């Protein structure tokens, strides 16, 4: 019976598709949180597989900080068009204009934290009762504690010490009015799994992930892309380097790495040999030791 087993990518895929279908069946108005990063791209790809030959039955929700890489926006619009999916944009600029949040100031100012308010407002406005995200447990220590089905109270908050037990693959998405769920179908995937799967399924990605030339500055050991959104000190020197991005967040906080990897195979080789985690150069995680946990409790992704 030896050929009746699945390799790990097939098993992970089967698990994720099962979770995505449970979301569709258990919720009234679920959506996919789409950042344009590789994890949400893989999630969207899996959702498409889960309902084939029907169209993907979820809208894509993009929380737009206004500080995007242009490559991400192009990719987003192309994908939405290709899938025939609905796109919902929650704008951080709108939240600022309405006085819901206040823009950070200073050298390391970013709109990362502000996204939480915009996200929760968007969830309320569109009455979304479940948002799927591409977060993985191997990414970060607070995320290692996440459930597949993660309950959020009426304030959108996560209570990590009082999570529902999650047994076998029996997911409990029951909730009261006003509460919602975050669901993470690729919880068990590692960065390596994601890259291998992208290669195996030949999933198109934004160009940011491949080596390209770019003007950058070096700050706190991280290479940051020069753009109109990055506040710079007078003494910071701009270099033109061959770089790529391992993650794809907001422009001013996502660090690049020097790399010449221009194909998926080369990226996989680089990931396998890497001695740094992929979020190691995300400024948003570096604000404190528990930066992710603190943000997640508030309702962050």
């Amino acid at each position, binding site marked *: 019976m030896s050929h009746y087993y699945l*390799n790990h990518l097939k098993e992970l895929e089967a698990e994720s598709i099962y979770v995505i279908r449970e979301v*569709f069946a258990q919720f009234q108005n679920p959506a996919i949180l789409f950042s344009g990063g590789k994890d949400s791209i893989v999630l969207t790809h899996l959702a498409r597989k889960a309902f084939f030959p029907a*169209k993907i039955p979820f809208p894509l929700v993009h929380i737009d900080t206004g500080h995007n890489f242009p490559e991400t926006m192009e990719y987003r619009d192309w994908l939405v068009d290709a899938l025939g999916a609905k796109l919902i944009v929650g704008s951080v600029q709108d939240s600022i204009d309405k006085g819901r949040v206040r823009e950070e100031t200073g050298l390391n100012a970013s709109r990362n934290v502000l996204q939480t308010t915009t996200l929760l407002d968007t969830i309320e406005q569109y009455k979304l009762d479940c948002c799927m995200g591409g977060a993985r447990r191997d990414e970060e220590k607070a995320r290692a504690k996440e459930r597949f089905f993660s309950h959020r109270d009426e304030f959108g908050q996560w209570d990590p010490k009082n999570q529902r037990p999650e047994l076998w693959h*029996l997911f409990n998405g029951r909730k009261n009015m006003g509460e919602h769920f975050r669901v993470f179908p690729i919880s068990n995937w590692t960065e390596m799994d994601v890259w291998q799967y992208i290669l195996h399924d030949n999933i198109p990605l934004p160009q940011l992930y491949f080596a390209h030339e770019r003007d950058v500055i070096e700050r706190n050991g991280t290479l940051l892309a020069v753009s109109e959104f990055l506040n710079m000190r007078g003494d910071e020197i701009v270099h033109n380097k061959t770089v790529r991005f391992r993650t794809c967040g907001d422009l001013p906080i996502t660090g690049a790495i020097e790399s010449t990897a221009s194909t998926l195979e080369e990226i996989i080789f680089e990931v396998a040999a890497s*001695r740094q985690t992929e979020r190691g150069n995300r400024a948003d995680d570096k604000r404190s030791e528990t930066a992710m946990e603190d943000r997640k409790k508030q309702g962050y992704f």
Partner: protein
Amino acid sequence: MEHKAYLDMELLRFTTAGSVDDGKSTLIGRLLFDTKSIFEDQMEAVKRSSEKKGIQHIDLSLLTDGLKDEREQGITIDVAYRYFATPKRKFIIADTPGHVQYIRNMVTGASTANLALILVDARNGLTEQTYRHSYIASLLQIKHVIVCINKMDLVDYSEERFDDIVRDYKDFAAKLDIHDIRFIPISALHGDNVVHRSEKMEWYDGPTLIYLLETIHIASDENHIDCRFAVQTVIRPHSEDYHDFRGYAGRILGGIFRKGDEVMILPSGFTSTIKAIQTFDGELEEAFAPLSVTIELNDDIDISRGDMIVRVNNKPEVTQDVDIMVCWLNNNPMQLGHKYILRHTTREVRAMVKEIVYKIDINTMQRQEGEKQFAARDIGRIRLRTTAPVFTDPYRVNKHTGSLILIDEVTNETVAAGMIV
């Protein structure tokens, strides 16, 4: 790592339970470290935290304790999942706290595991925690158990001490339902027999821990005999290309389904044949657990979520009386006559507690009869009566169709884990 090889790796899920004292965190740290799965920036962060706490050595438990309270108090509260890979396999560790108040986390971690790793301190021998964790592994029908007798360096790498503990464990395990138990003498601190063979224990000629983890046979952990497919949802594209398409989406929970098979649908009892097994990547001739697929039938039958597709001559039990071993997970106690929502496969029904048969004292494994209620962490046998039939197999025959959860109708919390007897 050659990426082609990586594409064809098996996935092994294992669980560990225990407290910081018995060296569990050190062992996990050692596995991650010796398989080169810890990144430099993670190591730097752990070093910084260790220094801040005034600890001389690098505290590897900080790698596994993720929440603020856990790090501050030096305890593990919740299940944490860890990932590592060797060239042969990919591993998911469900790392759970071992104290008695965290049985629900242990049960959660054990529910998806192929294998349980049980740590015994060579100086202390078997403890209540060993019994508890072993009992849960047996109750949750984890097929493989590896008993790591740790801290061998503190007993002079004594073969005699190892043999004594193995004998004690075998005596105790005779009462359990675990068929594959292995023993390894290790020192997690020094790395003996974890990833590298020990030079201090030449008397031991068995495998290292990592060798066992890489090679233990898990392909037969799924049931490939009894065909079970629980419908999650119905796919009807209503598009021009697929105008009449009607597919049943779900995951194969047991057996091997083939195109052309004669099948029966529960609860209706109608029969049909499989027209096609669809996936995004093309049609399959056959499909087996745990694949997620979409099944098309040759007849138009009313089928919806919660229905089950099975083989005509191999049916699960169709019943409203469910006899289970239950772990009570909630602080609100369960009483005779209480009603709950029961979720089994993709089916949701209401259930009432009809009878409390007995409770188990997990430390002595004695049965206590005549109990009136179950409090948090109680384990025992109960009988439920459901409002509509469920389609069950014994848990020991099929974990997917033999497991259920109970949900509180008011709080919506998952309050119990049940294994069908």
